[in-house]
């Protein structure tokens, strides 16, 4: 599985990352290294800081962040705006994708792709080429083309929202895709579709940070590394067997140490 990917260059390097919001410290010294082409899975109980980690990686400004090192492809993330991070290749599939009335999915995608291309010094994509490409990619998530012309996430079902995120990922072709509980709320078919999409996008140039509450996604996506996040820290790292251990025994063993902080913060993780 992880034979050749693990030899890729260092993509994301995090040392002693802390983050707080509204006076509540949520991340308390995260250490994580991720190389090009690797798939890392982060599992953890509710409130452990999983979503905070994804938001902090994407550059949400509502967190105060400190770290000894926080770099992506050689850039110090601390000085980068969310759009700069996106243009450098960080993509976040949101846990709760927001509705944008009146803005069609295809329009957002076109604006996004062209912003990224501009950053790379490339010309905007020809409108016809763009449409052809998007129509090809939409097959990946098994949705009709009509979906492209609907307003972003408006009146989408839970499953449609998640598929839309995967479609956007497929079109924007990031170096690092962060999937924030993209699997939650999906039935088995949708889950398989999601995993299929991810697997097809896997390659030496693309890494994944898959945040999940459940082990079941790992039946379809084979990870290189699994980390347990509890109480704002990586409590344990390992391979696929770690996920199976969680499946058998739950997070209880990891939660005990982190209980103290959990009480006050609502939905931090």
């Amino acid at each position, binding site marked *: 599985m992880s034979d050749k990917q693990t030899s890729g260059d260092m993509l994301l390097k995090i040392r002693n990352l802390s983050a707080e919001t509204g006076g509540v410290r949520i991340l308390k010294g995260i250490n994580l290294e991720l190389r090009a082409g690797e798939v890392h899975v982060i599992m953890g109980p509710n409130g452990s800081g999983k979503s905070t980690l994804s938001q902090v990686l994407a550059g949400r400004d509502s967190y105060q962040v400190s770290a000894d090192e926080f770099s992506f492809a050689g850039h110090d993330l601390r000085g980068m705006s969310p759009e700069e991070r996106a243009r450098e290749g960080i993509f976040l599939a949101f846990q709760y994708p927001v509705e944008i009335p009146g803005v069609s999915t295809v329009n957002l995608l076109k604006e*996004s792709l062209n912003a990224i291309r501009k950053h790379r010094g490339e010309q905007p994509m020809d409108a016809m080429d763009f449409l052809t490409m998007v129509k090809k990619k939409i097959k990946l998530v098994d949705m009709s083309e009509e979906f492209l012309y609907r307003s972003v996430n408006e009146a989408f079902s839970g499953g449609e929202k998640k598929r839309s995120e995967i479609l956007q990922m497929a079109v924007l072709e990031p170096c690092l895709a962060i999937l924030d509980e993209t699997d939650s709320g999906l039935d088995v078919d949708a889950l398989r579709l999601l995993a299929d999409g991810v697997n097809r996008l896997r390659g030496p140039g693309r890494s994944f940070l898959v945040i999940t509450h459940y082990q079941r996604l790992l039946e379809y996506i084979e990870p290189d590394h699994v980390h347990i996040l509890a109480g704002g820290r990586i409590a344990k790292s390992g391979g696929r067997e770690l996920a199976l251990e969680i499946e058998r025994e739950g997070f209880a063993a990891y939660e005990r140490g982190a209980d103290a902080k959990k009480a006050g913060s609502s939905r931090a993780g």
Partner: protein
Amino acid sequence: MAEGSNLEHLIEREYKAGFVTDVEQESLPPGLSEGVIREISRKKGEPDFMLEWRLQAYRHWLTLREPTWAHVHYPPVDFQAISYFSQPRKDKDRPKSLDEVDPKLLETYEKLGIPLREREMLAGVAVDAVFDSVSIGTTYKAKLAELGIIFCSFSEAVREHPELVRKYLGTVVPQSDNFYAALNSAVFSDGSFVYVPKGVRCPMELSTYFRINAANTGQFERTLIIADEGAQVSYLEGCTAPRRDENQLHAAVVELVALDNAKIKYSTVQNWYPGDEEGRGGIYNFVTKRGVCRGANSHISWTQVETGSAITWKYPSVILQGDNSVGEFYSVALTNNYQQADTGTKMVHIGRNTRSTIISKGISAGHGQNAYRGLVKVLKSAQGARNFTQCDSLLFGNRCGAHTFPYIEVKNRSAQVEHEATTSKISEDQLFYCMQRGLSREDAVSLIVNGFCKAVFKELPMEFAVEAQKLLGVSLEGAVG
């Protein structure tokens, strides 16, 4: 978080059309009297009936008081301090074609990105440009004339087609309608006149660019559009004004008449000087616009994008007199800094099975105050009348305001009237989502705002829709930092 302070910067911007053309003006001294009105009429070479009509309006105006019911605040206007007539100096040899037009004036349009001649050729749009009070160029006239369509300045219509002017002038907005309509009727300077004969479908968009240029000159445009039985016409109005310190009053009257099976579409993009960041200066825009669906199955549609003016007071309305007639109002109004807008529409259902649609989108930023004021009135005779109203407000930051004053009066039990309203703030979640996809904060705001306005923009003719989107972008430039 930090929503207010971040968004505020996006709202600050410079008014891009703030310059003054150096053309000598021949203006009347400030002040209003019967003498001034006689002088206006004489300068324009009007027939007697027109002068009488003006004087009648003036005498009525003297009995009126300024209205105060609108949700806007401003110091009292001194009507004796305004000059009621100005025109470019070369009065006698008024240009017959664009070639004769003062190059300085043409340059003004160039700066505004409205190259008349280019538009003429590229867009196939006939342009009747009003520079202050006198039309300086009318194009495509010959082509339109072949179809019997009259498209000219209002002054010319008074001289050349007095029978049509007499027949329709003041039949939609009577002289006595309101304070500003009476004032306009007394002193109106110029505007456009359109007549589309029976069964003719106007093959191009008719367009007029208004521009206020002379300091201290009130602008009193008068526009009259008549679509005879089975006729169709689409009319575009757009305007920008140069930067000024003192306030300028603008009180236009627009009348539309649609006879049996006729259709009139009237679109406006309004970008007059809104005043500076402190609320100094800017245009007072007190306008009366009304259309009457006089014939059966007639159709009148108003679309407006209002981003300019210090104060806007404007209610493009439709009187649905003919059976099965249709009235529509699509509006985007943006108020920023200290701008105030009180705008909306009146739909008066008189005929049977008349239908009306109202879509209003208000955007408030800075200290801007934005009010929607609408009346849906269904008379006893309007069996089967229907109305749908949707009224949405979008807020930036927490110092601006959105207000809604819907009035509904229904006298017929068979009527169906629907009203939907929403108020939302542009959210940090939406912005973050777009930024995470690579868009800058400003582009994200622009995308979201244009999405909010989409239902209105799609009603605009193509080239105008593009202009309107750009205008909103410019209007919100620097609003988030």
